[in-house]
């Protein structure tokens, strides 16, 4: 505490505060303090708070928008996947349906063809039968009629018939022979 003793002894002591300066310094500081504490700093604090709120509000808004966008994107993706799935399902179904349809139509065609063929066969068979029946009847009648008309006599009598037929056949043979003979002479 030597310093303080020296300070007390000397008149021009830099460590002993002169009263006027002490008071003036105090007042000078208190004026600045009062103005800042009571008036200016509350104002700037308010504005800083406002700015902080504005910035954070903006950030919150941006965050909300981001979340919403992500949600929408997810929704779209889900919808897209669903639609793709649905389309696949439909395509598969259509393919199955088509295949079934084709198979069915093929079976139907086969069946119709078989039917037509069977009907044709039956028709042909029936026609053949009718024809051969009719032919058989007609051939006898026609042949008899023709023969009757040709020989000009009744062939009721079997013997006569036989003779007539034999004669007819002989004639035919002779005719044929004669014809071949003339043909041979003419050829010679």
């Amino acid at each position, binding site marked *: 505490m030597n310093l303080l003793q020296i300070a007390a002894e000397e*008149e*021009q002591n*830099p*460590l*002993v*505060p*002169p*009263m*006027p*300066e*002490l*008071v*003036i*310094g*105090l007042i*000078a*500081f*208190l*004026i*600045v*303090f009062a*103005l*800042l*504490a009571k*008036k*200016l*700093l509350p*104002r*700037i604090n*308010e*504005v*800083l708070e*406002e*700015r902080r709120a*504005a910035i954070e509000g903006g950030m919150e808004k941006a965050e909300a928008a981001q979340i919403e966008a992500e949600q929408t994107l997810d929704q779209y993706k889900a919808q897209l996947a669903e639609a793709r799935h649905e389309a696949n399902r439909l395509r598969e179904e259509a393919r199955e349906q088509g295949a079934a349809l084709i198979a069915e139509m093929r079976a139907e065609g086969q069946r119709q063809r078989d039917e037509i063929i069977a009907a044709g066969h039956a028709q042909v068979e029936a026609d053949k039968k009718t024809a051969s029946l009719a032919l058989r009847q007609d051939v006898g009648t026609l042949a008899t009629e023709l023969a009757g008309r040709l020989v000009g006599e009744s062939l009721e009598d079997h013997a006569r018939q036989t003779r007539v037929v034999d004669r007819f056949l002989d004639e035919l043979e002779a005719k044929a022979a004669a014809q071949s003979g003339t043909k041979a002479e003419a050829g010679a």
Partner: protein
Amino acid sequence: MSAADTTLAFDASCKIFVDGGCGFQSPGLHSFIFKPMFEIGGFEFNKPILLALLTTGLLCLFFWKAFASPKVVPGKLQMVAESGYDFVRRGIVYETIGKKEGEKWVPLLVSLFFFIWLMNLWSIIPLAQFPVTSIIAFPAALAGVVYVTWMTLTFKRHGFVGGLKNLTGYDKSLGAVLPLVMLIEFFSNVLVRPFTHAVRLFANMFAGHLLLVMFTVATWFFMNSWGFAYAPVAFVLVMVMIVFELFIQAVQAYVFVVLSASYISGALEEAH
């Protein structure tokens, strides 16, 4: 401290290499005593007082211009003031005391910082060229404000006994040395603290001003015949010291406010 017997500045006619002239007039305590500009009933109005009042005026003007009608999107002046305000608020108060408890003390510490800084800055401002804080009365007044603040706060927060425990660093686990520790703590916290708080600022600015004056006077003193060879050396040192002082002024203002904040923080601390 009357003004009549003060030696003012130095004799400008004192030069080197002048036969029978005066020698180098080194600066001293007299460099910190000013002739009163005028007197009102024994009250002497001098240069430090003028500068102190100018400090108040300029600070009020600056912060009024900057913060009177603040905008969410700040102008240039508001931005500068805001960054200074933010520096003290976040850089000192929140760091030392904490955000929750510290907010209340922001105005005091912000005012202190800028007030002290500008008081220091006068040291290198042309025409003023005198750090007001190198007159012990001004740091003492400010340290007194801080001392009263944290002492009041200590007793308000902890009550009389709790406050005393806080001030003396009462800690049962110390056992036998507790009385000694309490004595030392009380001495250091209650008696010495305000003194060191004020003198730290005062002495730094005092010494800085002495150096500046010495090199400035030396530059002038050398400016005669062969002395011109030496003058530039002194002059360069003046420049160097100005830059150095610029740094010290800010640092001392910072240190003063950080200490104030830590004293307040100590007062708020729960007793161990």
